[in-house]
Structure formats: structure tokens, C-alpha cells
């Protein structure tokens, strides 16, 4: 009863500084957990999203740009491939599936991607998961002016089956550049939590033959998404297309390219983590300063406790435990900040990329971080605890008569 009572009363007596200090701990803890979880979740989500295809074939250029453009529907296409190139790779014995895509238009900022119906019927976007349509929908016909809309895009564009729209030219929305063609929505995709959710899918011929597009490119494709029959075939194709050829680029393996991307931007993670660590240190320091500054006011209480028979180590332990309690309270509140930040960041990432982060996912950092913060605070509390430990009882209690 003694220690909890001493801690409780001390926290109550210094309620304002306790709240402010716990708030800074909460901020530090929430920030640390968010930085860590966004990093790990984003990396995992991006890498797992890219597992649907083994390789991306495109015009000569950057492999990363090809992957971002073909799979994540980000960035511009590095150039076009002739239909014959698509046919060549489709018929290659090492290739299991080849899906052509054509880009260049948008619907109020949401990318329009031309492709073939096989994307929805043959491809698993994740192991064991095929694209599904919401009730009443159907895949567009290959040569019709029809569209299948990703779930996120449909929600934001407020599109439903039977609605019509006219695409806008270019990847960025400009209301002056509207095409004449009208497409009818025939299906809405069920959520996949992949970039496909924020795409408006139409038949590839729809993009190729859109009014205002170069008639010479009427059969060109922007990229070909490839599933291989065997992993070893990728190295053979890589040798043939990238090293021996000079007209096309094969981005292979996709997962390694994404991992490489995260490797390149890892310095940013490190900077963020460093900032978070510094915030954590400052927060622990604030516990130290807060309790230390209150030591003069509480020295008399400590001396009284000593006079009542409390040992020095009891006093030391009480101050350290109080600091740890502030750390624990702050860490608990940190989960509120963590969930709020994660929800915000996840929404931004979903809107920008279509990739969905799992806000409620578990990870060791979610218990390690609060524990470390609490331990840091306890460590910070050791300094004022030492001062409390040294409180001279007789001098503090009363003047010598």
C-alpha cells in the first residue's frame, strides 16, 4: 500500500506537471511507434503488392520507373512498346501470362489504365486471391467503351454501375483536356487493398484509339506485366532483353526492385527514426527536469517519511517508480496518438498509392517501445531520486534548538 500511495499522492500533488510530462512521453512514444510501423508496414505492403507479377516489360529506361508505372500506377511511362513486342513476349515459352497495359488518360485525377479482360480472370493479385466484382457488375468487353472501376476510385468519384464518363487526357487532371468518348461503368471491383483500387480500368483499345491520341501509336502498349513459368526464366529473359538487347527493359525481379527502392530511401527512415529517438530522449529528460524541479517542494515530505521510518532505498524507489509511472501513463496515452497518426498516414498512403496499411496490425515495437520509454523515464527519475535519497532529515525537518 505504501509505495502506490506515495506515488499516487505525489502524482496528484503535481498533477499539472505530471500531465504535461506524460503528454510529451505520449507524443514521443506515439511518434516512435508510428515511424516504425509506417516503415515496416509500407515496405511489407509495397513488396507484397508486387508479388502478382514477376516482371514488367517496357521501353528502354529505368526498371524502377517501369515497376512504379506498371504495378503501382505511379509515375509516367518511360515510353511505348509495339504490339508486336507484346505478342513476342506473350508467346515466349518462359512466359505464363502477359498482360498489356496502356496509360495516358485520367478521370478527374484517377488514372485510366487500358488492359485486357484476362487481368481480372487469370491473374491473382495476391496468393489465392483473384479480382472480384461487386454484385451486379461484369468485366468490360474487349472492344466496347466500358469500364471497371477500382473500389477506392469508385468511392471517391461516386461512380456506380451504369454511370457514364468522359476521360481526360494526360495523367494529371485538366478539365480543358476532355476526350469525346463516353464510357459506361459495367463493374466495380471489390476492395483489394492494392493500387488497382484507385484505377479506372477500360479496354486497352479504348486508350489506344482515344480521340486526340497519336494514330501512329494506335496499337502501342505502355508496358507488359509478366508472370513467368519458372523463376530461372527471368534471368534468361533479363540476359536476352537487358544485356543483349537495347530497345526494351525488363524489370525483374519486381520484389527486388522494390526492396532496392526502400534501400535507397532508407536514409529518410533513419532521419525520421533519429528525430523520434531524440524526441524520446527529450521526453525522458523532461521527466527528469519535472521531478527534479519539484524536489525542493517535496523534500520536507520525504524527510517526514524518513523520520517515520522509511528507508533511503524506499524513498529512492518511490521517486524512480513515480517517474516510471509517468512514463507508463505517457506510453499508454501514446497508443492514442499512434492510432490517430497511423490512421492519418494510412489514409494518405491509400489515397496516393492505393496500398492499404493495417492500422491494427501487431508488432514487437508496440510493446518494446512503451517498455523502453518507461525504462528511460525510470532512468531519468534516478537523478532526482538520488537527490531524494540524500535528503538530510534533521536539517529539513526542523531547526536545531
Amino acid at each position, binding site marked *: 500500500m505504501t509505495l502506490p500511495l506515495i506515488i499516487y499522492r505525489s502524482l496528484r500533488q503535481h498533477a499539472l506537471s505530471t500531465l504535461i510530462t506524460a503528454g510529451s512521453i505520449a507524443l514521443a512514444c506515439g511518434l516512435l511507434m508510428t515511424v516504425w510501423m509506417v516503415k515496416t508496414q509500407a515496405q511489407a505492403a509495397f513488396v507484397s503488392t508486387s508479388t502478382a507479377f514477376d516482371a514488367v516489360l517496357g521501353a528502354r529506361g529505368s526498371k524502377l520507373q517501369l515497376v512504379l508505372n506498371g504495378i503501382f500506377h505511379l509515375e509516367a511511362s518511360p515510353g511505348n512498346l509495339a504490339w508486336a513486342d507484346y505478342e513476342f513476349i506473350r508467346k515466349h515459352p518462359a512466359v505464363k501470362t502477359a498482360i498489356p497495359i496502356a496509360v495516358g488518360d485520367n478521370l478527374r485525377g484517377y488514372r485510366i489504365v487500358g488492359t485486357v479482360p484476362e487481368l481480372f480472370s487469370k491473374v491473382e493479385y495476391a496468393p489465392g486471391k483473384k479480382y472480384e466484382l461487386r454484385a451486379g457488375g461484369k468485366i468490360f468487353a474487349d472492344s466496347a467503351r466500358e469500364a471497371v472501376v477500382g473500389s477506392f476510385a469508385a468511392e471517391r468519384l461516386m461512380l456506380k454501375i451504369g454511370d457514364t464518363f468522359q476521360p481526360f487526357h494526360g495523367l494529371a487532371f485538366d478539365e480543358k483536356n476532355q476526350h469525346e468518348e463516353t464510357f459506361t461503368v459495367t463493374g466495380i471491383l471489390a476492395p483489394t487493398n492494392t493500387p488497382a483500387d484507385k484505377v479506372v480500368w477500360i479496354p486497352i483499345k479504348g486508350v489506344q484509339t482515344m480521340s486526340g491520341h497519336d494514330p501512329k501509336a494506335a496499337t502501342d502498349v505502355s508496358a507488359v506485366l509478366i508472370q513467368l513459368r519458372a523463376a530461372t526464366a527471368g534471368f534468361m529473359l533479363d540476359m536476352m532483353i537487358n544485356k543483349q538487347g537495347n530497345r526494351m527493359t525488363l524489370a525483374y525481379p519486381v520484389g527486388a526492385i522494390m526492396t532496392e527502392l526502400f534501400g535507397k530511401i532508407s536514409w529518410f527512415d533513419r532521419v525520421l527514426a533519429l528525430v523520434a529517438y531524440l524526441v524520446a530522449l527529450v521526453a525522458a529528460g523532461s521527466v527528469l527536469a519535472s521531478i527534479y524541479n519539484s524536489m525542493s517542494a517535496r523534500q520536507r515530505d520525504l524527510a517526514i*517519511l524518513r523520520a517515520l521510518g522509511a528507508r533511503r532505498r524506499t524513498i529512492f524507489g518511490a521517486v524512480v517508480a513515480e517517474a516510471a509511472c509517468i512514463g507508463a501513463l505517457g506510453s499508454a496515452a501514446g497508443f492514442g496518438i499512434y492510432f490517430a497518426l497511423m490512421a492519418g498516414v494510412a489514409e494518405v498512403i491509400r489515397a496516393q498509392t492505393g496500398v492499404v496499411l493495417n492500422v491494427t496490425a501487431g508488432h514487437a515495437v508496440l510493446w518494446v517501445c512503451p517498455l523502453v520509454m518507461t525504462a528511460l523515464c525510470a532512468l531519468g527519475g534516478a537523478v532526482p531520486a538520488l537527490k531524494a535519497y540524500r535528503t538530510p532529515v534533521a536539517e529539513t525537518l526542523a531547526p536545531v534548538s
Partner: protein
Amino acid sequence: MLNVVDLTKSFTAPEGGRVEIVRVPRFELAAGEQRALRGESGSGKTTFLHLIAGILAADGGRAEIDGVDMAALPEAKRDRLRADKLGYIFQTFNLLQGYTVLENVLLGMSFGPRGVDRAHAVEVLGRVGLAHRLGHFPRQLSTGQQQRVAVARALANRPKLVLADEPTGNLDRVSSKEALALIREVCRENGAALLLVSHDDGVLAQFEGMQDFAVINEAKTVRGGVTPPTTTEAAK
């Protein structure tokens, strides 16, 4: 119960040198006995009580409580002996302002050998007339009531020896008389010995065996010589 032999204590004076505050060759108090010591401010009587209670470490001599020499014990054992055997009533009460009346008493008990006994704490507070003030904070009480809390806290652990340092110094004459009677009565009920120090003749007159502290304290100021320990160092 209490046996003091050649107990000495000195401090460093601000101008250097050593000031001897306490030198008591012999002082005894029997179990259940009540004794008052008269002393003016600065006579060293509080230091004497602090030495007996082990709040200060003695430079030399013995202060035996129930046969255990407080002066010879290391600090942790002095703390334990103080919690086990002693009750201390301070002139300024020294109540914990952030704690309720009941919590003040319970905390005092928590360091003792029997641990926290809520029912007994409530009973003792009832005995001093504060049963209806258990949840109040000291600042919500009158000076006389605060004094009663201090008495209850000192006695709740059923101490063998109660040390009272000017326990009525902050009370008016009527309250002082009542408080003193209460302390003596409760000590008697608990079988505790009482050693009270005061400079108030009105208080002292109520004790049969009153002694002058100046008579039993043979301390004299010694200047120069080896650098003496500071108060803080001495307490270690």
C-alpha cells in the same frame, strides 16, 4: 527502556571549528515512564531527541532502546528501529499535506513491524476525536486537530517510546493543556514511555519528574582542531 550513556554530537560552525551541541553522560527512562525535559531554544534538546531517534548519527556514546544501541547501528537499521519502537511528535506536527488524515496515520504504520492496520488507525484517530475527519487533508483542519493527527500517527504503531518535541508549541493555552493530557493518556493506555522536551513552564509543571536539559547536557563549544563532520555527513 531508554538508556543514554556518554552521548555526544557536534557540528561544524559557519565560521569553522566545531560546536558541541550534545554531551549527555547519563540519562535513563523506564518503560511506561513519562518525563519532561526543560530547555531553552538552542539548548540542543531537539538534537538530543534526534540522536535518540536515530535521525542523526551520534559522534560517540550509546543510546539504547530496549537494549539495542541506536548510536551503534548503521543508518538502515536505525530507520528500522525507529519505525519499530519509536513514535515522534514534532513541534510543527510535520504532517504530510498531500495526504488525508487517515493516510498520514497509515503511512506511519506502514514502516512499522505490524504493517498497515486500517481498523487500528481508525480506532486511534477516533480515540483522539478525529473519527469524522478521516478523509480531510491537514490544511482543512484546525491547528489543534492537526496536533491530534500527529499524536495519532506517533501512537498508531504501538511504540515503546514516544518522543515529543515541543508538542504544544503551536497551540493556545487551553488547547495545549488538552493536547498534553491526551498525549499522556494515550501513552499510558498503550504502555509507552514518554520523553517530552519543552520550554513552556505551563507544560512542564504537569510533569512530576521534570528535569532541566542544561543540567544533564554537559556540552561545551570547542573551536579549531580537526575539521569536524557536517550535519549531513554525520547523519550517514
